[in-house]
């Protein structure tokens, strides 16, 4: 089974984010990048599939030209090749623009299933997996923790309120992953070296017109300092009142 994993290179979750001069994207100065953590779970799931069932994992990414280095980390995990659609203004694309470019590229790649992370931690739109599946007319299961392959079908497991939902999909499908039971593997030292020699096909991402326009980015307001309501049972009563009337959380 050959699996394509769509990955995005996003700012490290430890990065301190500032809004850039344009007001619609972030200031990239000093920001470290890495493979989107949810995409790393998708790579891990894909590697486990090919280890169990044979086949190979290909990475497909749309992003800045400079993100090749980070895509190679995915190759070091065990993917055999990568396709990198370059666009230095990738963060100005909306989900459809990304999904359309990916879907068009996927038409020329060999695959049995397509895996994604459930969301990219930078734009947090959750839309690309569903859009790609719609464009390719494939079934999709989103936010799955695992997906077993049995008797020619995928059984994907999703955590839902108070339980789990098991979804069955035909083999040719799209699945997006959230944090699963197994953490993404660390690449070994030999695999880091091998990754340098693995094929990485780089080409300009096709232009696709946006349907959504980001007009402004704002950082959340700084959190106000905590307040000590008092001590003892009297304070508990006051705390409950404030939680209900002021914070409106109970």
């Amino acid at each position, binding site marked *: 089974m050959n699996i394509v994993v769509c990955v995005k290179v996003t700012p490290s979750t430890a990065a301190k984010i500032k809004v850039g001069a344009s007001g619609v994207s972030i200031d990239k100065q000093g920001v470290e990048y890495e493979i989107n953590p949810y995409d790393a779970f998708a790579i891990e799931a894909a590697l486990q599939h090919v280890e169990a069932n044979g086949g190979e994992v290909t990475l497909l990414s749309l992003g800045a030209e400079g993100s090749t*280095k980070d895509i*190679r*980390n995915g190759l*070091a995990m065990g993917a055999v090749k990568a396709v990198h659609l370059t666009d230095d203004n990738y963060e100005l694309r909306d989900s459809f623009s990304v999904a359309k470019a990916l879907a068009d590229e996927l038409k020329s790649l060999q695959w049995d299933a397509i895996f994604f992370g459930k969301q990219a931690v930078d734009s947090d739109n959750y839309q690309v997996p569903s859009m790609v599946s719609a464009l390719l007319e494939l079934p999709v299961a989103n936010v799955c923790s695992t997906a077993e392959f049995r008797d020619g079908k995928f059984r994907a497991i999703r955590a839902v309120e108070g339980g789990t939902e098991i979804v069955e999909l035909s083999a040719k499908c799209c699945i997006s992953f959230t944090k699963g039971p197994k953490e993404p593997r*660390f*690449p*070994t*030292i*030999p695999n*880091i*070296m091998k990754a*340098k020699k693995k094929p990485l096909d780089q080409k300009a991402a096709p232009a696709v017109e946006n349907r959504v326009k980001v007009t402004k980015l704002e950082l959340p307001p700084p959190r106000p300092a905590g307040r000590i309501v008092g001590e003892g049972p009297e304070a508990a009563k006051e705390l409950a009142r404030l939680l209900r009337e002021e914070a409106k959380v109970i």
Partner: protein
Amino acid sequence: MPTFELDEEIQDMQKMLRDFATEMIRPAYREAEHAGETPSELRESIKELSVHLVDMPEEYGGLGKDIRSAVVLEEELSYGDVGITVDVQDTSIGANAILIFGTDEQKTNLLTPILESGDGIAACFSEKGNPVSPEFIETTWREKEGSYKLMGSKTFVVGAGRAKNYLVLAKKDGSNDWQDLRLFLIAADTPGVVVGDRLGTLGLETCAVADVALMGVKVDSSRVLSAESSDAFKSKLGKVLDYARIVTCARMVGVMSATSDYSAKYSTERIAFDLPISQHQSIAFMVSDNATDVDACRWMTWQAAHEYVRGGESTANRALAHVVERAQKVATDSVQILGGHGFIQDHPVEKWMRDLRALSLIPGNDLFPEHG
């Protein structure tokens, strides 16, 4: 042109290992210390990373880089925890000895399988804390029809009872000639190898340290390493020991860097007299001195590694002497920065202080002969 810039590939390895060290090794350091061993799952994960292959030649299954890469990677692992690093990274120092002393045939037959399996090799050089020199060695060999027999006892063997192999230094019975020294690569389960009771240690409690007795151990000549002359043996042994010293430096720098970072962060969070303690001069000086020492020690280690590769005059002793001295300062100052919190086990700095002291005393580091 001098450069401190690491190539992209080493940077990738460094970054991966820093992540591994902080996410996988650091959380396990105390459990491993109390248990006296690395949790088996973690041991396997570290072995799987194959750091030990980085500086071994490709023809024997290595990755073809050299000790300049190894020091960067050893530092990163030790940043997580050096007890676990010394416990698990037990292949390369012995493997390097086979590389230096072995014939082509021995390298193919002995080194290749060890690199492939990642099995440990515990070095049994020192005896009773004496210098490594024929007149102080009491472990002896006798040869009969191509088979050797070893008698004697080695003290303070790190990895005793845990490594799959021992590399034993012994002299010919009755001879104090350097040329009659041999190194014997012995499988740990060979009859006559007797591991003594585990010794309690100041630091590095995760590692097993014990004496190893050799009671008439039979060794086939294919597993005996020798040199063509006294000078050659001395020079090769010097190279083996230099390698161990440089790797030890790198590991110590990793711990120094860890304790320096930890105490610096603590100093920005701990408030005294309405200010983070880092804003008080006496603490600020210690924090900046620590960071300076880490840099200086790292660069001396890298330079020693560079000279090792270049084959120039060895600076491994100089690097080790400096690193050992500055490590004690950085370790105790880091404990001091944490004040009352420094000596309790809720924080790792007290452990790192003990580990650094132990590393500076691992048998041999300050006992080896001059050479070259």
